[in-house]
C-alpha cells in the first residue's frame, strides 16, 4: 500500500479522502489556499502546505506549487479529488513524471474522455448509444445553424472541453442558437481554455443517470450500479439517489454493460463515471459524457454496496486487488444524497458568509460529508458545496423518511443555505413518487 498521499483539493472531498487514507495507514498531506487555512481538512491532515492566495489559479490549480509541496513533504502519491486538476491530463502526467503515484486513471484516458466530441465518437465505436450530435467541433454560427438543421431542434450547446454544466444552454430554434452560441464560446474559452463547441440533440423530459465503474489493477472494468442525478439547477446536480426510480432491470443491465464498454475502450483504471440521459417511457439511454475521476455523489454508491470507493482508488493505484470480490457485488436498500449549498433556497444565488452554528444530524443510516464547521468563513472563491447529507434506508420510503428528519436536524446559521429547498423537494409529490426528470426544479419553481 502507499506510504503517503498529498490530497490536491479542498473542502469536503479533501477531508473525505484524508479520512480513508488515515484509516488505511497512509499519511495524508493537505494543501490549502490562504482562504482555507481554518477549514477542517487542513487540521485533520498529518501534514499541510500553504499553496498561495485564494484564487484557484494561484492555489488549487497551480500544478507546479502542488508538485513542490509533494517534494517538500516527501509525499509518495497525489489524489486529485474532483474538479480543479482531477481531469487535467497534463497534471496527471507531471505527477507520474515526478516519480509519484497518480491516484487516478491513465493520463491518456483523461485526455480522450476530456474532449467531449472525441469521447462521443470513441464510445459510439465501442457500441455505446449516443444521441444525434457533432462529430467534430462547430467553428462558427453558420456551421452551428447547419449542424442544428441536421440534428433537429431543440439542441444543446456545449463546450467540448467542458464539464460541470458550465456554459451549457439549450436552443429551441435558430434565433436561440444564434444568441446562445456566442455565450457558449466565450464561456468555453474562459472556463476551459478552449472555444470548441459541440451540439447535441436536446432530450426534454429525460433523466440523468450515471454508472459508477472501477478499472481494476488487472485490467478488468466492473460496474457498481447507477445513480440518478436528475435533480438539477443550472444543469448542476443538487440531489442524487440509487437505485434510480426510473430504471428497470433490463435497462439497468444494458447501461451497466455500456459503461463497462466505455471504460474498456480507453483502458480505464480506478474510479470513473459514465453519464447517460435516459428516456424513461421508452427505457432507452444515450451516452452523455465520462467523468474520469471520483464523483461528488459517490457516497450513495458506497452506502448501498458497503464499498469505500476511495479505498479502492488507493488499492488500484498501488497495483493491489480491491477489498471486495468483483464477481459478487450486492446492492442493499436505497440511498439519497442532498448537496447542501451556501445559496438562497429560492433563486439559488450564492451566499458566502461566516458560519455561526453548525450542528449535523445523526442517526441510523445518516452520513454527513462536511467541508466546514462552526466559525468557518465560506468565501466566494470556490463552489458553494458546504456538505453532503446522505441517508441509507432499507427501501426508498425509509430513505425518504430519514432524509426528511435529517434535513430538519441539520442546523447551519450565519449564511443562507439550500436546506429549506431540500425540505421542499422531499415534501414534493413529484420527488416522493420517483416520477421526475431533469426539469423537476424548474417545475417546482414555476408553480
Amino acid at each position, binding site marked *: 500500500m502507499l506510504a503517503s498521499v498529498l490530497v490536491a483539493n479542498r473542502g469536503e472531498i479533501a477531508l473525505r479522502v484524508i479520512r480513508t487514507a488515515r484509516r488505511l495507514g497512509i499519511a495524508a498531506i493537505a494543501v490549502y489556499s490562504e482562504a482555507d487555512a481554518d477549514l477542517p481538512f487542513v487540521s485533520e491532515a498529518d501534514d499541510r502546505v500553504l499553496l498561495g492566495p485564494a484564487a484557484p489559479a494561484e492555489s488549487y490549480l497551480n500544478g507546479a506549487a502542488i508538485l513542490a509541496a509533494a517534494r517538500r513533504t516527501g509525499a509518495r502519491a497525489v489524489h486529485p479529488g474532483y474538479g480543479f486538476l482531477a481531469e487535467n491530463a497534463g497534471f496527471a502526467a507531471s505527477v507520474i513524471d515526478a516519480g509519484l503515484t497518480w491516484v487516478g486513471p491513465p493520463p491518456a484516458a483523461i485526455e480522450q474522455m476530456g474532449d467531449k466530441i472525441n469521447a462521443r465518437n470513441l464510445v459510439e465505436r465501442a457500441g455505446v448509444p449516443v444521441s444525434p450530435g457533432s462529430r467534430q467541433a462547430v467553428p462558427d454560427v453558420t456551421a452551428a445553424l447547419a449542424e442544428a438543421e441536421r440534428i433537429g431542434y431543440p439542441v444543446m450547446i456545449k463546450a467540448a472541453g467542458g464539464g*460541470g454544466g*458550465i456554459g451549457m444552454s439549450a436552443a429551441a430554434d435558430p434565433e436561440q442558437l444564434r444568441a446562445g452560441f456566442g455565450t457558449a464560446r466565450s464561456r468555453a474559452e474562459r472556463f476551459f481554455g478552449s472555444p470548441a463547441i459541440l451540439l447535441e440533440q436536446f432530450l426534454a423530459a429525460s433523466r440523468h443517470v450515471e454508472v459508477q465503474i472501477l478499472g481494476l489493477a488487472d485490467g478488468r472494468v466492473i460496474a457498481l450500479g447507477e445513480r440518478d442525478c436528475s435533480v438539477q439547477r*443550472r444543469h448542476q446536480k443538487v440531489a442524487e439517489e440509487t437505485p434510480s426510480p426510473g430504471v428497470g432491470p433490463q435497462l439497468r443491465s444494458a447501461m451497466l454493460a455500456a459503461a463497462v464498454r466505455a471504460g474498456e475502450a480507453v483502458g480505464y483504471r480506478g474510479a470513473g463515471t459514465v453519464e447517460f440521459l435516459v428516456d424513461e417511457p421508452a427505457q432507452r439511454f444515450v451516452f452523455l459524457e465520462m467523468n474520469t475521476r471520483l464523483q461528488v455523489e459517490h457516497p450513495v454508491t458506497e452506502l448501498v454496496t458497503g464499498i469505500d470507493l476511495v479505498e479502492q482508488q488507493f488499492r488500484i493505484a498501488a497495483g493491489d486487488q480491491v477489498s471486495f470480490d468483483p464477481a459478487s457485488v450486492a446492492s442493499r436498500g436505497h440511498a439519497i444524497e442532498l448537496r447542501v449549498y*451556501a*445559496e438562497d433556497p429560492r433563486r439559488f*444565488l*450564492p*451566499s*458566502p*458568509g461566516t458560519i455561526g452554528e453548525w450542528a449535523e444530524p445523526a442517526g441510523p443510516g445518516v452520513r454527513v460529508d462536511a467541508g466546514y464547521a462552526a466559525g468557518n468563513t465560506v*468565501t*466566494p*472563491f*470556490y*463552489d*458553494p458545496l458546504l456538505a453532503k447529507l446522505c441517508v441509507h434506508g432499507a427501501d426508498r420510503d425509509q430513505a425518504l423518511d430519514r432524509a426528511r428528519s435529517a434535513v430538519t436536524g441539520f442546523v447551519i446559521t450565519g449564511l443562507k443555505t439550500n436546506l429549506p429547498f431540500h425540505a421542499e423537494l422531499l415534501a414534493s409529490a413529484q420527488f416522493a413518487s420517483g416520477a421526475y426528470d431533469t426539469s423537476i426544479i424548474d417545475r417546482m419553481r414555476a408553480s
Partner: protein
Amino acid sequence: MTEVRAEMVANVWKVVAAAGDTIADGDTLVILESMKMEIPVLAEGAGTVARLAVAEGDVIQEGDLIAVIE
C-alpha cells in the same frame, strides 16, 4: 440618483458599463462572480452612469457600492 449595491460577497469579473454611458432599464453594469457563478448586475431604470465604484478583479462585500446612476 440611484445607488447600485452588491447583494453578496463576490469578485468583480467584468465591468461592462463606463462612467458617462447612457443606459436603459435592464442593461448590464458589471458582471460579478461568486462561487463559480456569473451574476450580472443590472440597471434598475434608465439614466446615465455617474460613477463606477468597482474595477475588474475587486473583491466586494455585501452592501458595497457598485455604481451610481443619475
